[in-house]
Protein backbone atom coordinates (compact mmCIF):
# COMPACT_ATOMS: atom_id res chain seq x y z
CA UNK A 1 0.00 0.00 0.00
CA UNK A 2 1.05 3.52 0.57
CA UNK A 3 2.11 5.46 -2.46
CA UNK A 4 0.12 3.49 -4.99
CA UNK A 5 -3.10 3.92 -3.09
CA UNK A 6 -2.55 7.65 -2.68
CA UNK A 7 -1.68 7.98 -6.35
CA UNK A 8 -4.91 6.22 -7.26
CA UNK A 9 -6.81 8.68 -5.12
CA UNK A 10 -5.30 11.62 -6.98
CA UNK A 11 -5.84 10.22 -10.46
CA UNK A 12 -9.54 9.68 -9.85
CA UNK A 13 -9.82 13.32 -8.86
CA UNK A 14 -9.93 14.83 -12.38
CA UNK A 15 -12.95 12.94 -13.79
CA UNK A 16 -14.86 13.50 -10.54
CA UNK A 17 -13.99 17.19 -10.69
CA UNK A 18 -15.28 17.54 -14.26
CA UNK A 19 -18.44 15.70 -13.24
CA UNK A 20 -19.00 18.12 -10.40
CA UNK A 21 -18.44 21.12 -12.65
CA UNK A 22 -20.97 19.78 -15.14
CA UNK A 23 -23.64 19.09 -12.54
CA UNK A 24 -23.31 22.48 -10.84
CA UNK A 25 -23.13 24.34 -14.14
CA UNK A 26 -26.38 22.96 -15.48
CA UNK A 27 -28.12 22.98 -12.11
CA UNK A 28 -27.82 26.73 -11.62
CA UNK A 29 -28.61 27.43 -15.28
CA UNK A 30 -31.84 25.48 -15.03
CA UNK A 31 -32.83 27.09 -11.74
CA UNK A 32 -35.57 29.68 -12.33
CA UNK A 33 -34.48 33.30 -12.69
CA UNK A 34 -31.35 34.84 -14.14
CA UNK A 35 -28.67 37.27 -13.05
CA UNK A 36 -30.27 40.35 -14.55
CA UNK A 37 -33.91 39.64 -13.69
CA UNK A 38 -34.12 42.05 -10.85
CA UNK A 39 -32.58 45.02 -12.62
CA UNK A 40 -34.87 47.90 -13.22
CA UNK A 41 -36.35 47.89 -16.68
CA UNK A 42 -33.33 47.98 -18.91
CA UNK A 43 -33.52 49.11 -22.47
CA UNK A 44 -33.41 46.04 -24.75
CA UNK A 45 -30.14 47.16 -26.41
CA UNK A 46 -28.33 47.28 -23.09
CA UNK A 47 -29.80 43.94 -22.06
CA UNK A 48 -28.53 42.51 -25.33
CA UNK A 49 -25.04 43.86 -24.86
CA UNK A 50 -25.01 42.58 -21.27
CA UNK A 51 -26.04 39.15 -22.48
CA UNK A 52 -23.39 39.24 -25.18
CA UNK A 53 -20.70 40.32 -22.76
CA UNK A 54 -21.42 37.31 -20.51
CA UNK A 55 -22.04 34.93 -23.44
CA UNK A 56 -25.66 34.50 -22.31
CA UNK A 57 -26.77 34.84 -25.94
CA UNK A 58 -24.89 31.66 -26.88
CA UNK A 59 -26.46 28.20 -26.66
CA UNK A 60 -25.99 26.55 -23.27
CA UNK A 61 -23.52 23.91 -24.48
CA UNK A 62 -21.32 26.61 -25.92
CA UNK A 63 -21.41 28.55 -22.66
CA UNK A 64 -20.38 25.36 -20.92
CA UNK A 65 -17.40 24.85 -23.23
CA UNK A 66 -16.35 28.45 -22.87
CA UNK A 67 -16.47 28.04 -19.09
CA UNK A 68 -14.37 24.88 -19.22
CA UNK A 69 -11.83 26.55 -21.49
CA UNK A 70 -11.53 29.50 -19.11
CA UNK A 71 -11.33 27.21 -16.14
CA UNK A 72 -8.44 25.28 -17.65
CA UNK A 73 -6.54 28.57 -17.46
CA UNK A 74 -7.69 28.95 -13.83
CA UNK A 75 -9.91 31.81 -14.92
CA UNK A 76 -13.23 31.66 -13.11
CA UNK A 77 -14.71 34.45 -15.20
CA UNK A 78 -16.17 37.85 -14.38
CA UNK A 79 -18.79 38.32 -11.66
CA UNK A 80 -22.25 39.03 -12.95
CA UNK A 81 -23.16 41.23 -10.06
CA UNK A 82 -20.00 42.93 -8.94
CA UNK A 83 -19.18 45.20 -11.81
CA UNK A 84 -15.62 45.04 -13.06
CA UNK A 85 -14.59 42.33 -10.58
CA UNK A 86 -13.47 38.86 -11.54
CA UNK A 87 -14.41 35.83 -9.46
CA UNK A 88 -10.70 35.16 -8.96
CA UNK A 89 -10.31 38.56 -7.33
CA UNK A 90 -13.38 38.12 -5.14
CA UNK A 91 -12.21 34.73 -3.90
CA UNK A 92 -8.65 35.93 -3.38
CA UNK A 93 -10.04 38.60 -1.11
CA UNK A 94 -12.58 36.61 0.87
CA UNK A 95 -11.07 33.16 1.08
CA UNK A 96 -8.02 33.99 3.21
CA UNK A 97 -10.39 35.41 5.80
CA UNK A 98 -12.47 32.23 5.85
CA UNK A 99 -9.33 30.12 5.89
CA UNK A 100 -7.96 31.94 8.89
CA UNK A 101 -11.26 31.69 10.73
CA UNK A 102 -11.46 27.99 9.88
CA UNK A 103 -7.96 27.23 11.09
CA UNK A 104 -8.46 29.09 14.35
CA UNK A 105 -11.69 27.19 14.87
CA UNK A 106 -10.07 23.87 14.09
CA UNK A 107 -7.31 24.69 16.56
CA UNK A 108 -9.84 25.33 19.30
CA UNK A 109 -11.85 22.28 18.36
CA UNK A 110 -8.81 20.01 18.54
CA UNK A 111 -7.39 21.50 21.70
CA UNK A 112 -10.66 21.43 23.61
CA UNK A 113 -11.98 18.25 22.04
CA UNK A 114 -8.91 16.06 22.50
CA UNK A 115 -8.25 17.24 26.06
CA UNK A 116 -11.88 16.85 27.12
CA UNK A 117 -12.18 13.44 25.48
CA UNK A 118 -8.95 12.16 27.01
CA UNK A 119 -9.97 13.46 30.42
CA UNK A 120 -13.33 11.70 30.14
CA UNK A 121 -11.73 8.43 29.12
CA UNK A 122 -9.15 8.49 31.90
CA UNK A 123 -11.81 7.85 34.52
CA UNK A 124 -15.06 6.80 32.84
CA UNK A 125 -18.29 7.32 34.76
CA UNK A 126 -16.79 9.74 37.23
CA UNK A 127 -17.31 13.50 37.31
CA UNK A 128 -14.14 13.76 35.21
CA UNK A 129 -16.21 12.07 32.53
CA UNK A 130 -19.65 13.55 33.18
CA UNK A 131 -18.53 17.18 33.23
CA UNK A 132 -16.91 17.43 29.78
CA UNK A 133 -19.49 15.12 28.27
CA UNK A 134 -22.42 17.26 29.41
CA UNK A 135 -20.68 20.26 27.87
CA UNK A 136 -20.29 18.30 24.69
CA UNK A 137 -24.02 17.58 24.55
CA UNK A 138 -24.58 21.31 24.86
CA UNK A 139 -22.06 22.01 22.13
CA UNK A 140 -23.66 19.58 19.74
CA UNK A 141 -27.22 20.71 20.46
CA UNK A 142 -26.79 24.48 20.52
CA UNK A 143 -26.64 26.04 17.05
CA UNK A 144 -24.02 28.69 16.28
CA UNK A 145 -26.63 31.44 16.21
CA UNK A 146 -27.24 30.74 19.90
CA UNK A 147 -23.63 30.15 20.97
CA UNK A 148 -22.36 33.22 19.10
CA UNK A 149 -24.63 35.80 20.74
CA UNK A 150 -24.18 34.02 24.08
CA UNK A 151 -20.39 34.37 23.90
CA UNK A 152 -20.78 37.97 22.76
CA UNK A 153 -23.04 38.63 25.72
CA UNK A 154 -20.66 37.09 28.27
CA UNK A 155 -17.21 38.09 27.00
CA UNK A 156 -18.12 41.12 24.94
CA UNK A 157 -20.80 42.92 26.88
CA UNK A 158 -20.71 41.73 30.50
CA UNK A 159 -17.00 41.19 30.95
CA UNK A 160 -16.00 43.53 28.15
CA UNK A 161 -12.75 41.69 27.47
CA UNK A 162 -13.21 40.83 23.79
CA UNK A 163 -14.53 42.76 20.80
CA UNK A 164 -17.96 41.76 19.57
CA UNK A 165 -17.46 42.22 15.82
CA UNK A 166 -14.89 43.05 13.14
CA UNK A 167 -11.81 41.35 11.72
CA UNK A 168 -8.73 43.44 12.42
CA UNK A 169 -6.83 42.56 15.59
CA UNK A 170 -6.13 39.09 17.01
CA UNK A 171 -8.73 39.67 19.68
CA UNK A 172 -11.29 39.80 16.89
CA UNK A 173 -10.47 36.19 16.05
CA UNK A 174 -11.28 34.70 19.45
CA UNK A 175 -15.05 34.84 19.75
CA UNK A 176 -15.90 33.95 16.14
CA UNK A 177 -13.53 30.99 16.08
CA UNK A 178 -14.80 29.74 19.44
CA UNK A 179 -18.34 30.07 18.19
CA UNK A 180 -17.60 28.19 15.01
CA UNK A 181 -15.33 25.61 16.63
CA UNK A 182 -17.45 24.80 19.68
CA UNK A 183 -19.71 22.24 18.02
CA UNK A 184 -16.66 20.61 16.45
CA UNK A 185 -14.88 20.53 19.80
CA UNK A 186 -17.94 18.85 21.27
CA UNK A 187 -18.03 16.26 18.53
CA UNK A 188 -14.27 15.66 18.65
CA UNK A 189 -14.42 15.11 22.42
CA UNK A 190 -16.99 12.36 21.85
CA UNK A 191 -14.89 10.77 19.13
CA UNK A 192 -11.82 10.98 21.32
CA UNK A 193 -13.56 9.45 24.30
CA UNK A 194 -15.13 6.75 22.15
CA UNK A 195 -11.83 5.94 20.49
CA UNK A 196 -9.99 5.71 23.79
CA UNK A 197 -12.72 3.65 25.43
CA UNK A 198 -12.59 1.24 22.53
CA UNK A 199 -8.84 0.92 22.89
CA UNK A 200 -9.12 0.41 26.66
CA UNK A 201 -10.86 -2.90 26.16
CA UNK A 202 -8.11 -4.23 23.89
CA UNK A 203 -5.85 -7.02 25.05
CA UNK A 204 -2.70 -4.96 24.56
CA UNK A 205 -3.85 -2.47 27.18
CA UNK A 206 -4.05 -5.32 29.66
CA UNK A 207 -0.50 -6.20 28.62
CA UNK A 208 0.55 -2.64 29.33
CA UNK A 209 -1.05 -2.82 32.79
CA UNK A 210 0.65 -6.15 33.41
CA UNK A 211 3.96 -4.41 32.78
CA UNK A 212 3.22 -2.04 35.65
CA UNK A 213 2.62 1.11 33.64
CA UNK A 214 0.38 3.72 35.24
CA UNK A 215 -2.95 4.74 33.76
CA UNK A 216 -1.56 8.06 32.58
CA UNK A 217 1.42 6.37 30.92
CA UNK A 218 -0.95 3.90 29.30
CA UNK A 219 -3.15 6.70 28.04
CA UNK A 220 -0.35 8.64 26.42
CA UNK A 221 1.82 5.83 25.18
CA UNK A 222 -0.54 3.00 24.37
CA UNK A 223 -4.03 4.39 23.87
CA UNK A 224 -3.65 7.79 22.25
CA UNK A 225 -2.13 6.64 18.99
CA UNK A 226 -4.99 4.30 18.19
CA UNK A 227 -7.67 6.20 20.07
CA UNK A 228 -7.10 9.38 18.11
CA UNK A 229 -7.71 7.70 14.75
CA UNK A 230 -11.46 8.45 14.74
CA UNK A 231 -10.57 12.10 15.36
CA UNK A 232 -8.03 12.03 12.55
CA UNK A 233 -10.53 10.68 10.07
CA UNK A 234 -12.91 13.40 11.14
CA UNK A 235 -10.30 16.13 10.60
CA UNK A 236 -10.90 16.27 6.84
CA UNK A 237 -14.66 16.70 7.00
CA UNK A 238 -14.18 19.01 9.98
CA UNK A 239 -11.81 21.41 8.25
CA UNK A 240 -13.92 21.30 5.11
CA UNK A 241 -17.02 21.97 7.18
CA UNK A 242 -15.34 24.82 9.04
CA UNK A 243 -14.15 26.41 5.80
CA UNK A 244 -17.43 26.08 3.99
CA UNK A 245 -19.95 26.38 6.79
CA UNK A 246 -18.98 29.65 8.42
CA UNK A 247 -21.88 31.60 6.96
CA UNK A 248 -23.80 32.20 10.19
CA UNK A 249 -20.68 32.99 12.18
CA UNK A 250 -19.43 35.37 9.51
CA UNK A 251 -22.78 37.14 9.58
CA UNK A 252 -23.01 37.39 13.39
CA UNK A 253 -19.52 38.84 13.72
CA UNK A 254 -19.58 40.82 10.49
CA UNK A 255 -16.58 39.07 8.97
CA UNK A 256 -15.81 39.59 5.26
CA UNK A 257 -15.43 35.87 4.46
CA UNK A 258 -16.41 33.64 1.60
CA UNK A 259 -19.55 32.19 3.16
CA UNK A 260 -21.43 35.42 2.87
CA UNK A 261 -20.41 35.79 -0.77
CA UNK A 262 -21.64 32.34 -1.54
CA UNK A 263 -25.16 32.84 -0.22
CA UNK A 264 -25.43 36.29 -1.70
CA UNK A 265 -24.34 35.06 -5.12
CA UNK A 266 -26.72 32.11 -5.04
CA UNK A 267 -29.63 34.41 -4.26
CA UNK A 268 -28.59 36.81 -7.03
CA UNK A 269 -27.94 34.07 -9.57
CA UNK A 270 -24.41 35.33 -9.92
CA UNK A 271 -23.56 32.24 -11.97
CA UNK A 272 -19.79 32.54 -12.06
CA UNK A 273 -19.42 33.30 -8.37
CA UNK A 274 -21.61 30.35 -7.44
CA UNK A 275 -19.57 28.12 -9.73
CA UNK A 276 -16.24 29.41 -8.49
CA UNK A 277 -17.14 29.12 -4.84
CA UNK A 278 -18.63 25.66 -5.26
CA UNK A 279 -15.55 24.42 -7.06
CA UNK A 280 -13.36 25.87 -4.36
CA UNK A 281 -15.47 24.15 -1.71
CA UNK A 282 -15.23 20.89 -3.57
CA UNK A 283 -11.46 21.17 -3.90
CA UNK A 284 -11.23 21.90 -0.18
CA UNK A 285 -13.21 18.77 0.62
CA UNK A 286 -11.01 16.68 -1.61
CA UNK A 287 -7.72 18.07 -0.34
CA UNK A 288 -8.77 17.78 3.31
CA UNK A 289 -9.79 14.15 2.95
CA UNK A 290 -6.66 13.39 1.00
CA UNK A 291 -4.44 14.86 3.69
CA UNK A 292 -6.25 12.73 6.27
CA UNK A 293 -5.56 9.60 4.25
CA UNK A 294 -1.89 10.46 4.21
CA UNK A 295 -1.95 11.08 7.96
CA UNK A 296 -3.69 7.76 8.51
CA UNK A 297 -1.03 5.90 6.62
CA UNK A 298 1.50 7.59 8.83
CA UNK A 299 -0.28 6.80 12.12
CA UNK A 300 -1.33 3.20 11.61
CA UNK A 301 1.58 0.94 10.66
CA UNK A 302 -0.81 -1.80 9.54
CA UNK A 303 -2.18 0.34 6.71
CA UNK A 304 1.34 1.02 5.55
CA UNK A 305 2.13 -2.58 4.76
CA UNK A 306 -1.12 -3.88 3.35
Amino acid sequence: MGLRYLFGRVSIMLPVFIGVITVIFFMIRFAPGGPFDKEKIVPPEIMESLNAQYHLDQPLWKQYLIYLADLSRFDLGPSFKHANRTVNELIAEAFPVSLELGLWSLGWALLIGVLAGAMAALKPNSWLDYLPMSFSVLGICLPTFVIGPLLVLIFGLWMGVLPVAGWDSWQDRVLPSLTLGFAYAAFISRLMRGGLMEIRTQDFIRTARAKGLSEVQILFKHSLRGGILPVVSFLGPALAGLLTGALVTETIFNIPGLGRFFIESALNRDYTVVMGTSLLYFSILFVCNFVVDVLYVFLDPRVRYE
Partner: protein
Amino acid sequence: MASSVPILAIRDLRAHFHTRRGIIKAVDGISFEIQKGETLAIVGESGSGKTVSQLSYLGLLPMPPLRIAGGQAFFHDTDLIKAGKDKLRAVRGDSISMIFQEPMTSLNPYLKIGTQLIEPLCLHRKLSKKEAWKVASESLEKVGIADAARTMHSYPHEFSGGMRQRVMIAMAITTKPEVLIADEPTTALDVTIQAQILELLGELKKETGMSIILITHDLGIVASVADKVLVMYGGKMMEEATAHELFSASSHPYTTALLKSTPRVDIPQEVLPVIGGSPPDLSKLSPGCPFYDRCALRLDACKETAPKPCSLSPSHRSFCHLETVQ
Protein backbone atom coordinates in the same frame (compact mmCIF):
# COMPACT_ATOMS: atom_id res chain seq x y z
CA MET B 1 9.67 -29.38 48.34
CA ALA B 2 6.92 -27.92 50.52
CA SER B 3 9.37 -27.23 53.31
CA SER B 4 10.57 -23.74 52.42
CA VAL B 5 8.58 -20.51 52.53
CA PRO B 6 6.46 -20.04 49.39
CA ILE B 7 7.11 -17.08 47.10
CA LEU B 8 3.44 -16.71 46.36
CA ALA B 9 0.61 -17.95 48.55
CA ILE B 10 -3.03 -17.49 47.59
CA ARG B 11 -5.50 -18.24 50.37
CA ASP B 12 -9.22 -18.72 49.88
CA LEU B 13 -9.44 -16.20 47.04
CA ARG B 14 -12.95 -15.14 46.07
CA ALA B 15 -13.34 -12.99 42.97
CA HIS B 16 -16.90 -12.22 41.90
CA PHE B 17 -18.28 -10.25 38.98
CA HIS B 18 -21.21 -8.06 39.93
CA THR B 19 -23.18 -7.79 36.72
CA ARG B 20 -26.72 -6.80 35.85
CA ARG B 21 -27.62 -10.45 35.49
CA GLY B 22 -26.40 -11.25 38.99
CA ILE B 23 -23.24 -12.16 40.81
CA ILE B 24 -20.92 -14.40 38.83
CA LYS B 25 -18.70 -16.29 41.23
CA ALA B 26 -15.88 -16.78 38.75
CA VAL B 27 -13.42 -17.67 41.50
CA ASP B 28 -14.73 -18.95 44.81
CA GLY B 29 -12.32 -20.18 47.43
CA ILE B 30 -9.11 -20.92 45.57
CA SER B 31 -5.87 -21.55 47.45
CA PHE B 32 -2.43 -22.47 46.20
CA GLU B 33 1.22 -21.92 46.98
CA ILE B 34 4.27 -21.85 44.81
CA GLN B 35 7.90 -22.27 45.81
CA LYS B 36 10.97 -20.98 44.07
CA GLY B 37 11.64 -22.85 40.84
CA GLU B 38 8.38 -24.75 40.94
CA THR B 39 5.88 -25.13 38.11
CA LEU B 40 2.25 -25.14 39.10
CA ALA B 41 -0.30 -26.09 36.50
CA ILE B 42 -3.88 -24.91 36.77
CA VAL B 43 -6.23 -27.03 34.71
CA GLY B 44 -9.93 -27.04 34.03
CA GLU B 45 -12.40 -26.65 31.22
CA SER B 46 -13.10 -23.35 29.54
CA GLY B 47 -14.91 -20.96 31.87
CA SER B 48 -13.78 -22.64 35.08
CA GLY B 49 -12.14 -19.43 36.30
CA LYS B 50 -8.48 -20.15 35.62
CA THR B 51 -7.70 -16.78 34.07
CA VAL B 52 -9.70 -14.82 36.63
CA SER B 53 -7.95 -16.68 39.46
CA GLN B 54 -4.69 -15.03 38.36
CA LEU B 55 -5.74 -11.68 36.93
CA SER B 56 -7.86 -10.84 39.97
CA TYR B 57 -5.14 -10.65 42.62
CA LEU B 58 -2.85 -8.80 40.20
CA GLY B 59 -5.46 -6.07 39.79
CA LEU B 60 -5.68 -6.68 36.05
CA LEU B 61 -9.45 -6.93 35.88
CA PRO B 62 -11.72 -3.90 35.82
CA MET B 63 -13.35 -3.18 39.19
CA PRO B 64 -16.28 -2.91 38.84
CA PRO B 65 -17.57 -5.35 37.69
CA LEU B 66 -15.00 -7.45 39.59
CA ARG B 67 -15.05 -7.42 43.34
CA ILE B 68 -12.65 -9.35 45.52
CA ALA B 69 -15.03 -10.86 48.03
CA GLY B 70 -12.33 -12.32 50.21
CA GLY B 71 -9.00 -14.00 50.53
CA GLN B 72 -5.34 -13.11 50.60
CA ALA B 73 -2.57 -13.18 48.03
CA PHE B 74 0.81 -13.08 49.71
CA PHE B 75 3.77 -12.32 47.51
CA HIS B 76 6.59 -12.80 50.02
CA ASP B 77 5.26 -10.68 52.90
CA THR B 78 2.94 -8.41 50.97
CA ASP B 79 -0.75 -9.12 50.63
CA LEU B 80 -1.36 -8.00 47.06
CA ILE B 81 -5.06 -7.68 47.70
CA LYS B 82 -4.56 -5.14 50.47
CA ALA B 83 -1.62 -3.45 48.76
CA GLY B 84 -2.28 -0.11 47.15
CA LYS B 85 -2.27 0.47 43.41
CA ASP B 86 1.29 1.76 43.38
CA LYS B 87 2.67 -1.20 45.30
CA LEU B 88 0.85 -3.55 42.94
CA ARG B 89 2.22 -1.76 39.88
CA ALA B 90 5.72 -2.08 41.27
CA VAL B 91 5.30 -5.86 41.43
CA ARG B 92 3.58 -6.29 38.06
CA GLY B 93 5.97 -6.66 35.18
CA ASP B 94 8.92 -6.72 37.56
CA SER B 95 8.76 -9.68 39.93
CA ILE B 96 5.53 -11.16 38.57
CA SER B 97 5.18 -11.20 34.78
CA MET B 98 2.43 -12.50 32.59
CA ILE B 99 1.99 -14.07 29.19
CA PHE B 100 -1.53 -14.07 27.85
CA GLN B 101 -3.84 -16.45 26.11
CA GLU B 102 -4.14 -14.25 23.01
CA PRO B 103 -0.74 -13.74 21.34
CA MET B 104 -2.26 -12.08 18.27
CA THR B 105 -3.79 -9.16 20.15
CA SER B 106 -1.64 -8.81 23.24
CA LEU B 107 0.96 -6.59 21.60
CA ASN B 108 0.22 -2.99 20.72
CA PRO B 109 -0.17 -2.80 16.92
CA TYR B 110 0.76 0.89 16.85
CA LEU B 111 4.16 0.58 18.51
CA LYS B 112 7.40 -1.03 17.44
CA ILE B 113 8.20 -4.27 19.19
CA GLY B 114 11.36 -2.74 20.63
CA THR B 115 9.44 0.16 22.12
CA GLN B 116 7.16 -2.27 23.90
CA LEU B 117 9.94 -4.60 24.98
CA ILE B 118 11.98 -1.97 26.77
CA GLU B 119 9.09 -0.61 28.84
CA PRO B 120 9.43 -2.94 31.85
CA LEU B 121 13.18 -2.31 31.95
CA CYS B 122 12.87 1.46 31.79
CA LEU B 123 10.09 1.40 34.34
CA HIS B 124 11.34 -1.06 36.94
CA ARG B 125 15.09 -1.18 36.37
CA LYS B 126 15.36 2.54 35.58
CA LEU B 127 17.57 1.73 32.60
CA SER B 128 18.12 4.33 29.91
CA LYS B 129 16.43 3.62 26.60
CA LYS B 130 19.73 2.64 25.04
CA GLU B 131 20.69 0.18 27.76
CA ALA B 132 17.19 -1.25 27.83
CA TRP B 133 17.26 -1.70 24.06
CA LYS B 134 20.38 -3.83 24.42
CA VAL B 135 18.98 -5.98 27.23
CA ALA B 136 15.72 -6.43 25.36
CA SER B 137 17.51 -7.54 22.18
CA GLU B 138 19.37 -10.16 24.19
CA SER B 139 16.11 -11.32 25.61
CA LEU B 140 14.73 -11.73 22.09
CA GLU B 141 17.74 -13.86 21.19
CA LYS B 142 17.12 -15.93 24.29
CA VAL B 143 13.63 -16.85 23.11
CA GLY B 144 15.03 -17.99 19.78
CA ILE B 145 14.42 -15.01 17.56
CA ALA B 146 17.39 -14.99 15.25
CA ASP B 147 17.18 -11.52 13.80
CA ALA B 148 16.73 -9.67 17.08
CA ALA B 149 18.01 -6.28 15.94
CA ARG B 150 15.60 -6.13 13.03
CA THR B 151 12.71 -7.52 15.07
CA MET B 152 13.12 -4.71 17.57
CA HIS B 153 12.36 -2.24 14.79
CA SER B 154 9.38 -4.15 13.40
CA TYR B 155 5.70 -3.93 14.18
CA PRO B 156 3.73 -6.85 15.64
CA HIS B 157 1.58 -7.45 12.56
CA GLU B 158 4.65 -8.48 10.61
CA PHE B 159 4.87 -11.65 12.72
CA SER B 160 2.96 -14.90 13.13
CA GLY B 161 1.21 -15.90 16.36
CA GLY B 162 4.09 -18.13 17.42
CA MET B 163 6.61 -15.36 16.92
CA ARG B 164 4.43 -12.88 18.77
CA GLN B 165 4.13 -15.29 21.68
CA ARG B 166 7.92 -15.52 21.72
CA VAL B 167 8.05 -11.74 21.83
CA MET B 168 5.57 -11.77 24.72
CA ILE B 169 7.74 -14.28 26.56
CA ALA B 170 10.84 -12.19 25.90
CA MET B 171 9.02 -9.18 27.28
CA ALA B 172 7.93 -11.09 30.37
CA ILE B 173 11.43 -12.31 31.20
CA THR B 174 13.46 -9.14 30.58
CA THR B 175 13.15 -8.14 34.21
CA LYS B 176 14.03 -11.67 35.46
CA PRO B 177 10.74 -12.12 37.31
CA GLU B 178 10.40 -14.47 40.26
CA VAL B 179 7.05 -15.69 39.03
CA LEU B 180 5.95 -16.07 35.42
CA ILE B 181 2.25 -16.60 34.87
CA ALA B 182 1.61 -18.21 31.50
CA ASP B 183 -2.09 -18.24 30.67
CA GLU B 184 -2.58 -20.92 28.03
CA PRO B 185 0.49 -19.68 26.18
CA THR B 186 0.05 -22.21 23.40
CA THR B 187 -3.70 -22.64 22.98
CA ALA B 188 -3.92 -20.26 20.03
CA LEU B 189 -0.91 -21.78 18.29
CA ASP B 190 -0.14 -24.69 15.94
CA VAL B 191 0.74 -28.00 17.53
CA THR B 192 4.36 -27.89 16.36
CA ILE B 193 4.80 -24.36 17.69
CA GLN B 194 3.14 -25.38 20.98
CA ALA B 195 5.92 -27.86 21.65
CA GLN B 196 8.60 -25.28 20.86
CA ILE B 197 7.09 -22.70 23.18
CA LEU B 198 6.75 -25.18 26.04
CA GLU B 199 10.31 -26.32 25.55
CA LEU B 200 11.41 -22.71 25.61
CA LEU B 201 9.57 -22.06 28.89
CA GLY B 202 11.23 -25.15 30.36
CA GLU B 203 14.70 -23.96 29.34
CA LEU B 204 14.11 -20.47 30.67
CA LYS B 205 12.95 -21.86 33.96
CA LYS B 206 16.04 -24.00 34.31
CA GLU B 207 18.24 -21.06 33.45
CA THR B 208 16.65 -18.42 35.68
CA GLY B 209 15.17 -20.49 38.48
CA MET B 210 11.88 -18.66 38.22
CA SER B 211 8.59 -20.20 39.26
CA ILE B 212 5.91 -20.74 36.64
CA ILE B 213 2.15 -20.80 36.94
CA LEU B 214 0.96 -22.50 33.81
CA ILE B 215 -2.72 -22.32 32.97
CA THR B 216 -3.92 -24.91 30.52
CA HIS B 217 -6.74 -27.27 29.76
CA ASP B 218 -4.39 -29.74 28.18
CA LEU B 219 -3.39 -32.47 30.61
CA GLY B 220 -0.77 -33.65 28.16
CA ILE B 221 1.11 -30.43 28.76
CA VAL B 222 0.73 -30.85 32.51
CA ALA B 223 2.32 -34.27 32.43
CA SER B 224 5.38 -32.99 30.65
CA VAL B 225 6.15 -29.79 32.57
CA ALA B 226 4.31 -29.41 35.89
CA ASP B 227 5.54 -30.18 39.39
CA LYS B 228 2.09 -29.81 40.89
CA VAL B 229 -1.42 -29.33 39.66
CA LEU B 230 -4.55 -27.50 40.72
CA VAL B 231 -7.77 -28.69 39.12
CA MET B 232 -10.52 -26.07 38.95
CA TYR B 233 -14.15 -26.32 38.03
CA GLY B 234 -16.96 -23.79 38.31
CA GLY B 235 -14.66 -21.34 40.09
CA LYS B 236 -13.85 -23.86 42.81
CA MET B 237 -11.00 -26.18 43.65
CA MET B 238 -11.61 -29.80 42.78
CA GLU B 239 -8.27 -31.37 43.50
CA GLU B 240 -4.67 -30.45 44.11
CA ALA B 241 -1.75 -32.80 43.90
CA THR B 242 1.73 -33.28 42.60
CA ALA B 243 1.75 -34.09 38.90
CA HIS B 244 2.83 -37.62 39.71
CA GLU B 245 0.02 -38.15 42.21
CA LEU B 246 -2.55 -36.72 39.83
CA PHE B 247 -1.66 -39.06 37.00
CA SER B 248 -1.14 -42.13 39.14
CA ALA B 249 -3.85 -41.71 41.76
CA SER B 250 -6.37 -39.04 40.88
CA SER B 251 -9.28 -38.99 43.27
CA HIS B 252 -11.90 -36.51 42.14
CA PRO B 253 -14.49 -37.69 39.59
CA TYR B 254 -13.95 -34.47 37.62
CA THR B 255 -10.21 -35.06 37.39
CA THR B 256 -10.85 -38.62 36.34
CA ALA B 257 -13.24 -37.44 33.63
CA LEU B 258 -10.70 -34.87 32.44
CA LEU B 259 -7.98 -37.52 32.32
CA LYS B 260 -10.21 -39.86 30.34
CA SER B 261 -10.95 -37.18 27.79
CA THR B 262 -7.24 -36.47 27.22
CA PRO B 263 -5.50 -38.31 24.37
CA ARG B 264 -2.74 -40.58 25.66
CA VAL B 265 0.30 -41.83 23.92
CA ASP B 266 0.58 -45.00 25.97
CA ILE B 267 -2.98 -46.30 25.57
CA PRO B 268 -4.37 -46.37 22.02
CA GLN B 269 -7.92 -45.04 21.91
CA GLU B 270 -10.33 -44.93 19.01
CA VAL B 271 -12.81 -42.41 20.35
CA LEU B 272 -12.07 -40.06 23.22
CA PRO B 273 -14.82 -39.98 25.80
CA VAL B 274 -16.07 -36.46 26.42
CA ILE B 275 -17.47 -35.18 29.68
CA GLY B 276 -21.23 -35.14 29.25
CA GLY B 277 -23.17 -31.93 29.86
CA SER B 278 -21.72 -28.44 29.92
CA PRO B 279 -20.06 -26.21 32.54
CA PRO B 280 -22.47 -24.62 35.02
CA ASP B 281 -23.90 -21.12 35.00
CA LEU B 282 -21.66 -19.44 37.54
CA SER B 283 -24.36 -16.99 38.60
CA LYS B 284 -26.75 -19.76 39.65
CA LEU B 285 -24.53 -22.12 41.61
CA SER B 286 -26.10 -24.16 44.38
CA PRO B 287 -24.21 -24.36 47.68
CA GLY B 288 -23.05 -27.88 46.80
CA CYS B 289 -20.41 -29.15 44.43
CA PRO B 290 -20.50 -27.36 41.05
CA PHE B 291 -19.83 -30.64 39.24
CA TYR B 292 -22.98 -32.24 40.73
CA ASP B 293 -25.07 -32.12 37.53
CA ARG B 294 -22.48 -33.88 35.42
CA CYS B 295 -20.95 -36.21 37.98
CA ALA B 296 -21.39 -39.93 37.40
CA LEU B 297 -20.76 -40.77 41.06
CA ARG B 298 -22.81 -38.07 42.74
CA LEU B 299 -24.35 -38.55 46.19
CA ASP B 300 -27.34 -36.79 47.72
CA ALA B 301 -25.04 -34.78 49.95
CA CYS B 302 -23.24 -33.30 46.95
CA LYS B 303 -26.16 -31.12 45.91
CA GLU B 304 -26.61 -29.14 49.11
CA THR B 305 -23.35 -29.11 51.02
CA ALA B 306 -19.97 -28.07 49.79
CA PRO B 307 -17.43 -30.88 50.08
CA LYS B 308 -14.67 -30.46 52.64
CA PRO B 309 -11.11 -30.94 51.49
CA CYS B 310 -9.82 -34.40 52.16
CA SER B 311 -6.08 -34.93 52.50
CA LEU B 312 -4.83 -38.01 50.70
CA SER B 313 -1.19 -37.13 51.26
CA PRO B 314 0.62 -34.00 52.49
CA SER B 315 0.52 -32.66 48.95
CA HIS B 316 -2.72 -34.20 47.73
CA ARG B 317 -6.18 -32.86 48.55
CA SER B 318 -9.48 -33.66 46.98
CA PHE B 319 -12.70 -31.66 47.40
CA CYS B 320 -15.22 -34.46 47.12
CA HIS B 321 -17.81 -36.11 49.37
CA LEU B 322 -16.80 -39.54 48.11
CA GLU B 323 -13.50 -39.30 49.94
CA THR B 324 -15.17 -38.42 53.25
CA VAL B 325 -17.78 -41.16 52.88
CA GLN B 326 -15.27 -43.93 52.32
